[in-house]
């Protein structure tokens, strides 16, 4: 089995990197090489299973109570494994270039060790079919990514971010533990296959389990309001790790949710409502908070929340389809959500790579300090632009395809279902349209302020294009975004196996409904081809018209003002000012304004900052209360040994009394 082999290579690579690591030795190629080889090996069985090959399983005894080393590669796992392996390999190649500046200053062994362990952990999470093994892999993934996030542990902000991530992920795991224990008690087994066969028959228990899964897996995925760790951890981590975490690691939460839905039996209508509600909250709030940010990586982190919201909308449409017995909605909804998982991995990986290149070139990810980078970093700019168009859900790239499927489901459901199904779908249509518009606003801001115009500070004017190790992964991901857009009907056809697996519909039903969705997409592609031909025609027309005419260079028209400076340009903060003003009540943007005073004003400044809604209003006060409560317990611990002996004696007497009661 190729995947076992791949995991063995990852393990060997991790050990070798650690053993050979020294501050003056470059182990990057060894670490990245093992990840790339493992990914290539792993992709073979994954693609086989996705194209309808037989499901593979491995069962080995494991000397842990209730544990068993039980791995199954089914289409659902394969669908998530594909982007995981792809992005792991590309991030590894990128990481070689990205970490080069640390060479000689820091031993790179540990970072590559944890990188290999993270990839291994993600693979195990997706393959594990035993609850204990799953939790073990889940923990492996969490701990490895914690150490990767805190790579620059010298910085206070990074340690703080790592701590928030560590607490958040373990709180999520606590909910999962309860989820697994309750399910195991109900079914009498630790085996996912048994759980899926038996299903949870008790209605009330299934509801509770569903909510537990939403909180537990939603914390990893980044559903609002459990998203607080994302905007902290992603900016702190090295960029190739941010790309991997945001692109695929958070999707393990979505995978977990989809997997647990297979245990929970027939969903009632309100599950679909809840997921659409969560999707809309995460999507709209995610993009609004992203708009208000002027740290490039923080902005991208909030966009992960938004895109996870879009995926949740797709799953919500699918669940409504299950509840109302509509195979169209099931296929289109789950299909759109699953395709968005792949698409988001591609464009978010690409955008984080671009942000990393900017950070490395300029030394800052403060958007308002940048500008005019397109002239100095043409490759990074062009690929970032493709990612920006894709994430805004605009044709002809991949983001449009998955959002098209989700919209298609919403329109068909909205036109055919009764009020209980149609009203949430109407909210979905309005919300997804708003999300798309605001995402376009956010990425015109990000691209426009970072790459266009004039450099705003010294940071931006002395920069350089990245090396090939970082450029190649960006080019490949940009090509992926374009190819999925151009071959949309085929890509949708590739969902066949995974949809049969997820929805449990018959092969023929899935095929017919997928074909019904692929038909419009084929015409979308025709439209795309027409668009590209028109573009070429217009290009030739313009060139022909301008040939032989006077084409001059000048300065930007400043309405007659003769001494423009780069500081007069619109900034990221001023660009979004209309939005932040309208949603002031929600965003709570802090403004610190020092007005220009006197006839010859010397100093004036304006700083805006938008802290997270939940972090400041929900979690910080909550955790402070918990902290206060726990500190009360300190009264028990006063120091004298006699007191502790008394505690022991009292405990023993109480236990004795309870035993002989």
């Amino acid at each position: 089995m190729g995947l076992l082999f791949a995991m063995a290579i990852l393990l060997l690579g991790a050990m070798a990197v650690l053993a050979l690591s020294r501050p003056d030795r470059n182990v990057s190629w060894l670490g990245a090489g093992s990840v790339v080889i493992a990914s290539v090996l792993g992709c073979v069985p994954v693609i086989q299973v996705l194209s309808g090959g037989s499901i593979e399983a491995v069962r080995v005894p494991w000397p842990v109570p209730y544990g068993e080393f039980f791995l199954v590669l089914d289409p659902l796992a394969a669908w998530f494994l594909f982007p995981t392996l792809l992005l792991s390999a590309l991030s590894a190649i990128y990481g070689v270039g990205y970490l080069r500046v640390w060479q000689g200053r820091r031993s790179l062994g540990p970072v590559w060790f944890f990188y290999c362990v993270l990839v291994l952990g993600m693979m195990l999470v997706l393959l594990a079919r035993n609850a204990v093994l799953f939790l073990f892999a889940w923990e492996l993934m969490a701990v490895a990514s914690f150490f990767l996030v805190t790579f620059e542990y010298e910085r206070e902000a990074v340690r703080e971010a790592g701590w928030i991530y560590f607490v958040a992920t373990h709180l999520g795991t606590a909910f999962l533990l309860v989820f697994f224990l309750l399910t195991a008690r109900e079914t009498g087994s630790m085996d996912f296959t048994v759980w899926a066969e038996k299903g949870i028959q008790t209605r009330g228990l299934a509801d509770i389990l569903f909510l537990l899964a939403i909180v537990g897996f939603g914390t990893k995925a980044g559903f609002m309001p459990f998203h607080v760790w994302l905007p902290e951890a992603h900016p702190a981590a090295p960029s190739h790790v941010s790309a991997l975490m945001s692109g695929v690691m958070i999707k393990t939460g979505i995978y977990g949710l989809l997997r647990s839905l297979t245990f929970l039996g027939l969903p009632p209508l309100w599950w679909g409502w809840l997921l659409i509600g969560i999707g809309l909250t995460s999507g709209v709030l995610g993009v609004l908070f992203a708009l208000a940010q002027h740290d490039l990586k923080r902005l991208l982190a909030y966009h992960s929340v938004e895109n996870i919201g879009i995926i949740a909308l797709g799953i919500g449409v699918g669940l409504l389809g299950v509840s109302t017995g509509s195979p169209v909605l099931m296929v289109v909804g789950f299909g759109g959500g699953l395709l968005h998982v792949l698409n988001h991995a591609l464009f978010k990986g690409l955008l984080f790579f671009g942000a990393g290149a900017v950070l490395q070139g300029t030394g800052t990810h403060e958007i308002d300090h940048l500008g005019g980078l397109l002239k100095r970093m043409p490759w990074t700019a062009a690929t970032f632009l493709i990612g920006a168009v894709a994430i805004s859900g605009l044709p002809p790239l991949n983001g449009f395809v998955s959002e098209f499927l989700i919209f298609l489901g919403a329109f068909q459901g909205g036109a055919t279902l009764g009020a209980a199904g149609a009203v949430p779908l109407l909210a979905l249509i309005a919300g997804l349209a708003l999300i798309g518009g605001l995402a376009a606003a956010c990425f015109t801001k990000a691209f426009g302020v970072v790459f266009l115009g004039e450099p705003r500070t010294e940071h931006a004017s002395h920069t350089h294009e990245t090396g090939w190790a970082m450029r190649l992964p960006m080019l490949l991901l940009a090509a992926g975004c374009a190819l999925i857009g151009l071959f949309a009907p085929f890509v949708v056809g590739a969902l066949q196996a995974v949809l049969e697996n997820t929805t449990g519909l018959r092969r023929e039903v899935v095929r017919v409904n997928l074909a019904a969705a692929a038909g419009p997409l084929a015409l979308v592609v025709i439209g795309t081809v027409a668009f590209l031909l028109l573009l070429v025609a217009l290009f030739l027309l313009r060139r022909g018209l301008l040939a032989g005419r006077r084409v001059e260079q000048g300065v930007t028209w400043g309405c007659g003002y003769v001494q423009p400076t780069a500081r007069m340009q619109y900034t990221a903060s001023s660009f979004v000012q209309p939005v932040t003003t309208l949603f002031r009540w929600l965003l709570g943007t802090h403004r610190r304004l020092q007005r220009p005073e006197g006839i010859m004003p010397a100093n004036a400044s304006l700083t805006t900052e938008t802290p997270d809604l939940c972090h400041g209003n929900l979690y910080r006060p909550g955790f402070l209360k918990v902290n206060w409560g726990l500190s009360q317990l300190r009264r028990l611990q006063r120091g004298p040994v006699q007191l502790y002996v008394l505690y022991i004696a009292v405990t023993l007497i109480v236990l004795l009394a309870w035993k002989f009661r």
Partner: protein
Amino acid sequence: MKPESFIPLLLALMLSPLLPGVINRTKALFAGRRGPPLLQIYFDLWKLLHKGAVYSRTTTWIFRAGPMLGLAAVLTAAMLVPLGNFPALIAFPADFLLFAGLLGLMRFFTVLAALDTGSSFEGMGASREVFFSALAEPALLVALATLARQAGSYSLSTLLGQVAGGHWLHLGPVLALVMIALMIVLLAENARIPVDDPNTHLELTMIHEVMVLDHGGPDFAFIVYGAALKLWLLAALVVGMVVPATGAPGLDLALVMGGMFAVAVVVGVVESVMARLRLAMVPQLLVGAGALAAAAFLLGLK
């Protein structure tokens, strides 16, 4: 693909610059002026296509590509929109999503081209454009979802015809609400009063006009033509809802063309009788349009 499905595209390509002419003439009539010739936009385009160009040293290839990408997007969108009873060249379920997406693509690159100049005026216009269109987008799609539910069909070419073909009798209020919402979207998307004033060419209150301040020559011709096409296409959506099929192609065509120019006259009248809203009020108008469309949807649930 039937031969008559080329008619909407050809008419849009040929006649769209006429609509701004009609609007301007209507406004002139209200103001008691003679106004520019009906064919003024054609003259402008002809003149612009014969000019050279001046580019700011700040700009990059984005600035030069913006007008081409924008026009290519709106030309593709023109293949998707039917005209009255004449189906569009490309029609498929949920084709309006591609239509909205292409308009979004056009906007994306117009905005980037504006930001490419590094001018604060154009930044200002770009900022407003993305914000207002983000609010107009839900109104457009919810309106179309309402129509799709009433018509039981998901393609512009069939759903508009079916709505116009008889639903007005028993669904009058629903369709009227949708039409008002679409009309507001039309005014906002084409930067007309009450959202933007196309006449204030150098004031700070502009949205679309200020974004294209630095373009000139053939590039600006592409922009002007693209804007006229966009107005035509959104007007075609509104007209398609109203004008029923008679069965006689000649009469159909006359009715539809009458409808298109009627929309232009309405836009002209709106611009003559009211002032532009304060910018802070525009979001309320657009959210209001979305609310009207949603109300129409709920009213039509039965």
